[in-house]
């Protein structure tokens, strides 16, 4: 289905995740973050950049991997994106919701 985020029409799934990363812009990410109640800072964007890179390299993400990335540790990851860091940051990054139990 389609959604309008930051005045841009994008394709999303029923949970609001972008289905095509090429439609993502920083403004779109900002809008998703706002809807999730998150005020984006440089630290947030560094994590988002990392997630997008991993997705482009077809690396399956999980909390452990993000924690070991050197970009952010697990404690800070939870502080930046409370209420579910991996799923919320993935949504903001415009990548699919990671399928992981770890």
């Amino acid at each position, binding site marked *: 289905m389609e959604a309008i985020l930051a005045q841009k029409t994008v394709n999303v799934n029923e949970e609001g995740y972008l289905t095509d990363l090429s439609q993502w812009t920083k403004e779109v990410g900002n809008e998703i973050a706002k809807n999730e109640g998150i005020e984006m800072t440089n630290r947030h964007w560094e994590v988002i950049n990392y997630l997008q890179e991993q997705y482009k390299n077809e690396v399956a993400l999980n909390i452990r991997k993000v924690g070991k990335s050197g970009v952010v540790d697990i404690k800070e990851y939870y502080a930046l994106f409370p209420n579910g860091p*991996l799923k919320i940051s993935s949504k903001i990054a415009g990548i699919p919701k990671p399928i992981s139990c770890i």
Partner: protein
Amino acid sequence: MDTQDNKPVKKMMLILSKATIENVYACFILANGARMEGIESEIFFTFFGLEAIQKEKLDHLHVATVGNPAMHIPTMLGGLPGMEALATTMMKKEMDKLDIPPVGEFLEILAASGTKLWACKLAMDMFHIKENNLIDDLDGVLTVGDFYQRAGGEGSHVLFI
């Protein structure tokens, strides 16, 4: 999902009473999975579950090969020396492929994620375990009454493993 009929889970209170690897991981994955969904989680380590938070023991836990029909090893063979170690090594290899961390690292992840880790006072007294034998990330020692008090609130669930 959070309609009136489908009230969301807000807090998972897990009680770990066993120290076989399959039970410890079930508990840790449930606790961590809760935090990943924005759900609070706490673990109360009691009886043999205390092994999973003893510094000297936590990285030497085993899978049970005796009395576990799902292992598909005849009970007589499961009891042979080295069988538990072998089965455990095999299981750990598979877990590593799935990026499931070892027990010690998993506890660090849980603590960093905000999962509260509690030791049972009675079981510690029974097994003569001192708090300094337990992991540094422990949030404290509780009685069962303390644990129930923490379990209050709507959407809170208690699970015994």
